[in-house]
C-alpha cells in the first residue's frame, strides 16, 4: 500500500470490528418491558430492568432464536450451554452496576463472512467472525441538560437485547470495513433479526485499528486504538481512514509501538472529521466478570438448531445466485438489487416472473425505481407501482407491444394514477396497431423511399433508421420492432 506522505514505506492497515445489533424482539432480554423506540422517558421500565434488588431476570426465548439465526447464517458454531456473565462497571445509565453479557461461553462463535472486494469486484474477501454474544443494552444519558449541567437518565433502553458481533482483525482498509458492514447489514436484514437502523442506534459499530509497518529489518505494530460508536457506514469509513493517517504520523514522530501504552479509546467527531481521545482502556480483569447466578444456561438441542436452520429465509448469496442463474443477470446487477434488501429482491423476482424478462426487469428497477425511491425517500413497499403491474408493462415491451418510450410514459402516469395498463394506454392514446395497419404503413414507406431501400440492399444497414422514425411520425403507436420486422419482410419479398 502506498501513501502520499511516504511513498517508500510499506505498511498494512489492520482493522477488526465490533458491531452491536439490536435484536428485533418486542420485549426486553430479561423482562416484559417493550423495546419500542422514541417513547416518553422512563415509561418502559420495571423493577427488573431498573435493577432493583430481589428481582429475577428471565431470558427472552426469541432473542436466543434470533442469535441462533445469525450464527447459522454466518457459518458459526452454536454453543449449547452458553453462559451469562456479569460485567461490572459503574455508570449512571447502568442501574444494576453490571451489564449482563456473555464472556467465555458466547452463544455462537467461529464463523466467517464473504463479501465483494471493494478494490476488485471480481474478488471476494473473507473475514473470520470470532464470536457473536448476547448482552443487554444500557440506558441513555443526556449530558449537560439539567440545572448545573447535570446529566439526565432515561432507562427505556436498559435491558434491550443486543447481539455483539466481533470480527477477527482481518480487514485491511477503511473501504473493506465499509463493504463488510454493508454485507453484514444486508444479511441481518434478510434474516429479519434487526431493523439495523443506525440513526436510532439499532446498529452501532466500534472499530479497532492499528498499522503493521514493515521496514528493512522488522515488522512493527502500532498501538491499537478503538474508535467507539460509529453511527453510519460513511463515518466508519472516514474514521478508520483518519486513524490510519494519524497513527502513521504519530509513529513517525514518536516511534511508539504496541505494548508501550494501553489500548486507547477514541471517539469520531463527524463535524471536525477527527478522532479524539476518550480514555485509556481498562483491562479485562477490571470488569470483574463472573457468572450470573440468576440465569441458568441455555442448552440448544440439535432438534432446535435443525428447526431454526429449516426456517431460515433465503440469504442474500442465495438470492444472488438465483438471479444470475435463472434470470441471467450480471453479478453486478444481481448485487445491486440484492443489497437493497429482501423487499426489493422480492419485487424484482415478481416482475421477472411475470414478464419472463430478467434483464429488462432489472434495468427498470436499477435505473428507474431505485432512483425514484432515493429521491422520494420511500421504501419499495410504499412505491405506487406494484411489482405485478410493472411485470405486465415489461412484458408488453418484451413482446414488442409497446416501445420503451411509450412504456416510460405509462410508468410516469402510474406514479400518480392507480389505473390498469389498459386504462393507461387509453388515457395516453396508445392503441394497439393491427397487423394490417403495419402492412399499410410499410407499403407507403417503401413506395416513398425507394432510394433508401436500394441503399439498404447495397449493404448500407443504417438506411433503415430514418424509415423507422418516419413510420413512428405517421403513427406514434406503431412498435418500431414490429415495423422493422415487417419492413424487412417486404424488402426480402420484392
Amino acid at each position, binding site marked *: 500500500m502506498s501513501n502520499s506522505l511516504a511513498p517508500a514505506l510499506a505498511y498494512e492497515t489492520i482493522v477488526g470490528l465490533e458491531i452491536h445489533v439490536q435484536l428485533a424482539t418486542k420485549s426486553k432480554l430479561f423482562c416484559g418491558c417493550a423495546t419500542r423506540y422514541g417513547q416518553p422517558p422512563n415509561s418502559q421500565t420495571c423493577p427488573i430492568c431498573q435493577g432493583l434488588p430481589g428481582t429475577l431476570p428471565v431470558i427472552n426465548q426469541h432473542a436466543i432464536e434470533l442469535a441462533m439465526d445469525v450464527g447459522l447464517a454466518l457459518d458459526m458454531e452454536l454453543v449449547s450451554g452458553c453462559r451469562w456473565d456479569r460485567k461490572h462497571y*459503574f455508570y449512571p445509565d447502568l442501574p444494576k452496576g453490571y451489564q449482563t453479557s456473555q464472556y467465555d461461553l458466547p452463544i455462537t462463535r467461529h464463523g466467517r463472512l464473504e463479501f465483494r472486494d471493494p478494490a476488485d469486484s471480481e474478488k471476494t474477501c473473507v473475514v473470520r467472525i470470532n464470536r457473536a454474544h448476547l448482552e443487554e443494552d444500557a440506558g441513555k444519558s443526556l449530558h449537560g441538560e439539567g440545572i448545573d449541567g447535570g446529566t439526565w437518565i432515561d432507562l427505556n433502553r436498559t435491558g434491550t437485547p443486543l447481539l455483539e458481533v466481533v470480527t477477527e482483525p482481518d480487514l485491511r482498509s477503511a473501504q473493506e470495513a465499509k463493504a463488510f458492514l454493508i454485507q453484514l447489514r444486508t444479511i441481518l436484514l434478510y434474516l429479519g433479526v434487526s431493523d439495523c437502523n443506525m440513526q436510532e442506534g439499532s446498529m452501532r459499530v466500534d472499530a479497532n485499528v492499528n498499522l503493521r509497518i514493515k521496514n528493512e529489518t522488522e515488522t512493527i505494530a502500532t498501538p491499537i486504538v478503538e474508535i467507539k460508536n460509529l453511527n453510519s457506514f460513511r463515518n466508519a469509513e472516514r474514521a478508520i481512514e483518519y486513524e490510519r493517517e494519524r497513527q502513521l504520523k504519530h509513529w513517525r514522530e514518536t516511534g511508539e509501538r504496541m505494548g508501550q501504552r494501553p489500548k486507547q479509546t477514541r471517539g469520531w467527531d463527524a463535524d471536525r472529521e477527527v478522532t479524539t481521545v476518550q480514555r485509556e482502556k481498562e483491562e479485562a480483569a477490571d470488569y470483574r466478570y463472573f457468572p450470573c447466578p440468576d440465569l441458568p444456561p*441455555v442448552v440448544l438441542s440439535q432438534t432446535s438448531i435443525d428447526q431454526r436452520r429449516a426456517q431460515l429465509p433465503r440469504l442474500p448469496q442465495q438470492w444472488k445466485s438465483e438471479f444470475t442463474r435463472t434470470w441471467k443477470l450480471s453479478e453486478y446487477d444481481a448485487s445491486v438489487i440484492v443489497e437493497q434488501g429482501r423487499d426489493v429482491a422480492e419485487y424484482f423476482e415478481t416482475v421477472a416472473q411475470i414478464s419472463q424478462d430478467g434483464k429488462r426487469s432489472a434495468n427498470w428497477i436499477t435505473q428507474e425505481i431505485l432512483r425514484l425511491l432515493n429521491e422520494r425517500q420511500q421504501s419499495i413497499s410504499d412505491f405506487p407501482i406494484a411489482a405485478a403491474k410493472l411485470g405486465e408493462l415489461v412484458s408488453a415491451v418484451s413482446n414488442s407491444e409497446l416501445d420503451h418510450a411509450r412504456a416510460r410514459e405509462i410508468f410516469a402516469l402510474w406514479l400518480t394514477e392507480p389505473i390498469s395498463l389498459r386504462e393507461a394506454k387509453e388515457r395516453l392514446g396508445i392503441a394497439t396497431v393491427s397487423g394490417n395497419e403495419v402492412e399499410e404503413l410499410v407499403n407507403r414507406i417503401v413506395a416513398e423511399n425507394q432510394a433508401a431501400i436500394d441503399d439498404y440492399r447495397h449493404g448500407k444497414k443504417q438506411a433503415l433508421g430514418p424509415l423507422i422514425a418516419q413510420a413512428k411520425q405517421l403513427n406514434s403507436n406503431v412498435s418500431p420492432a414490429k415495423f422493422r420486422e415487417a419492413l424487412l419482410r417486404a424488402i426480402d419479398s420484392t
Partner: protein
Amino acid sequence: MDSHNPAETTQDVTVETICQLERLAYLRLSDEDRGSFVNDLRKILGYARSLASLDLKDFAPQTHAIDQDNVMRGDVIEPSSSVEEALANAPVVAGSFLQVPRVLE
C-alpha cells in the same frame, strides 16, 4: 476481545488491590479502612481457597450451580411501571428523567 488472566483471581491482596477497587467503584476509603479490608479480604479469599483442596476428579466442570437449564419466557410485552413509580426512589428528578451529577466523558 480483552484477554483474561485466571491467575489474577488468586493474587495476593495488598493495599494497591484495595486502591484499584476503590477507583473502579468510585469509593474513597481511609488508610485505616484500607488496612482492615486487606486483612478481611485475605481471610475471605483464604477461606474460599480451601475449596481447592477438594477432590473433584469425578465431577464434570459446571457452568452453573443450579441443575436447571432453558428457563425462558416468550417474547410477550407486559405492562411496565408508571413513570411515577419508576422515578419514585430517585433522589433527584427532572421532568420524566432521573437526574445525576454531571458526568464527564
